[in-house]
């Protein structure tokens, strides 16, 4: 049961981090408020299920749609007119707080204010989670390798040049924002039906931070990088429970160090592939001296320059 719980949590994290990967990694927009979308998705899904008897899968998808709708409402003013990413970043920073603020102060029997929703039926199972994660990762993989995904990367690399080549900047940005919100909404619903209890505090800023840290560590331009990072970091945190408060300190340092030394993250622009990894380890004994040589060159080269 314990292991299953870790796997389900890891899967919800993977879904949201991959949603964020499209926005931050591929399109190049910075967000620290995606827990707000999780919150909206979770509340929508649970309330639909509770009061309108919407079945589980449909409730999750509708939760995602609710998050998408909200994302379009915030996205339009902040992303139009080719405004700088800074407006968007600060808006998202406030967004997570505001969603919690509003839910905390809605003291009606439906949303139940700061106390949150209790007695949610446990509808999320291991298999449904795995299936959902696989499907969503598959869709995202296809999306980023399609023309739309390439448009996103073009915007991230050179916005002006992308526009010259005929990429519609605002539309593409809004699209990737909406998709990432949808992913977070679905993940939120899934988490709610697993925890059986949600309150606005479940979706704190810490969660958004976790997502961004995972993404930055995993690599901003790959799907498998964040996927692996989410899986590893989530399970690692379970074993390091005692250090849980210090993790944000470490995340902060991690952002700085990774951006300083390897801004593209651990995986960078590459995707993880089992074949290549096996090949790498098989050929490691022969290639080892070569790697050492390269490493030495790198070190001495740096010294010469400075």
């Amino acid at each position, binding site marked *: 049961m314990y292991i299953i719980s870790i796997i389900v949590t890891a899967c919800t994290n993977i879904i949201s981090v991959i949603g964020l990967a499209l926005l*931050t990694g591929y399109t*190049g*927009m*910075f967000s*620290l408020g995606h827990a707000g979308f999780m919150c909206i998705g979770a509340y929508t899904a649970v309330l639909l299920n509770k009061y309108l008897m919407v079945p589980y899968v449909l409730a999750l998808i509708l939760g995602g749609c609710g998050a998408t709708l909200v994302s379009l409402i*915030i996205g339009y*003013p*902040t992303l139009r*007119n080719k*405004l*700088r*990413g*800074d*407006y968007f*970043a*600060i*808006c998202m*920073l*406030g*967004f997570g*707080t*505001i969603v919690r*603020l*509003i839910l905390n*102060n809605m003291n009606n029997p439906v949303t139940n204010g700061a106390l949150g929703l209790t007695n949610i039926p446990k509808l999320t199972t291991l298999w449904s989670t795995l299936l959902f994660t696989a499907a969503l990762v598959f869709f995202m993989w296809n999306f980023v390798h399609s023309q739309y995904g390439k448009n996103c990367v073009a915007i*991230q690399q050179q916005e002006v040049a992308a526009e010259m080549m005929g990429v519609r900047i605002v539309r593409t940005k809004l699209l990737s924002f909406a998709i990432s919100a949808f992913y977070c909404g679905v993940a939120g619903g899934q988490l709610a039906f697993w925890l059986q209890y949600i309150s606005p505090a479940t979706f704190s800023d810490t969660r958004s*931070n976790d997502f*961004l840290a995972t993404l*930055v560590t995993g690599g901003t331009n790959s799907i498998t990088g964040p996927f692996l990072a989410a899986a590893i970091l989530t399970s690692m945190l379970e074993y390091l429970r005692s250090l849980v*408060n*210090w993790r*944000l*300190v470490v*995340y*902060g*340092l*991690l*952002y*700085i160090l990774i*951006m*300083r030394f390897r*801004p593209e993250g651990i995986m960078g622009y590459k995707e993880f592939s089992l074949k290549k990894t096996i090949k790498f380890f098989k050929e490691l004994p022969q290639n080892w001296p070569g790697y050492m040589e390269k490493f030495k060159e790198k070190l001495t080269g740096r010294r010469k320059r400075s």
Partner: protein
Amino acid sequence: MSTILQQLINSVSVGGLYALLAVGYALIYSVFDFTNFAFGGIMMVSAFAGYFSTQLGLGTIPAMFVAMVAGVALSVAVELLAYRPMRKRNAKRLFLMISAMGVNIFLTNLFLCVFGANLRTLPSGFASNTITLWGVQVGTVDIVAFVTSAISLAILCFFLYKTRSGIAVRASAIDMSTAGLMGINVNRISLIVFVISGITAAIAGMFFGMKYTVYPGMGAMSNKAFIASVIGGLGSLPGAVLGGFVLGILEVLVAGYISATYRDLFSFGAMIIVLMFMPNGLIGKGDQNKL
């Protein structure tokens, strides 16, 4: 009538502090073209430095100097250790932003883990005093905060428009590489800018600590300053001041007459409305509008 006057005086003092912080943002934004999200963390650390020096028995004014030293040291350290190496490699703005946010998260949570989330009152010689002005009771701290921020803004204005270094800063804001070609030492300019932003962070942090309390999460207040500089026009100095006062007045009025819980909602809402109808802020002229 007297309550309105009271609210207005209160809002002007908050607005002055927002203006000061917004100027700190605007300076760095206009020179380096990125938002220094670490600003809130630096403000928090300098407020803590001020708090600890009052605990050691220093008066309010020496404590203010300690806070300034801490703010300046930290601001310059962040620039030298985190931003400058990245700028040298022509890193993307996104990466600089993530790094800045990392500094903020690191500082906030480090202080949270080490000192706990307690609210600490910053003792000051005049925090609880009030004086009567036109028949209205006004906190001395409000007056001092307003006067200090006004004086600091005036000094900054003088520095930027009348001294050689100030003119160099403005030249780098318009075009950094050309300024470098004209013989301006761009690295020195970056230090000057970060020193100024550290000082503004320290002053604002001290006064926020006196008006409210000192706690690790107080850096979030600087997000309001960012909103203020967006309302006024990002990157424009007069815009930042104007935006600071507009936001301060709006917040106090909302807290006084509608609800204090929804204050943040209104500030972010104001930013979104300004972005919808005036994407360049109230007095910003366009993307090229600098200082």
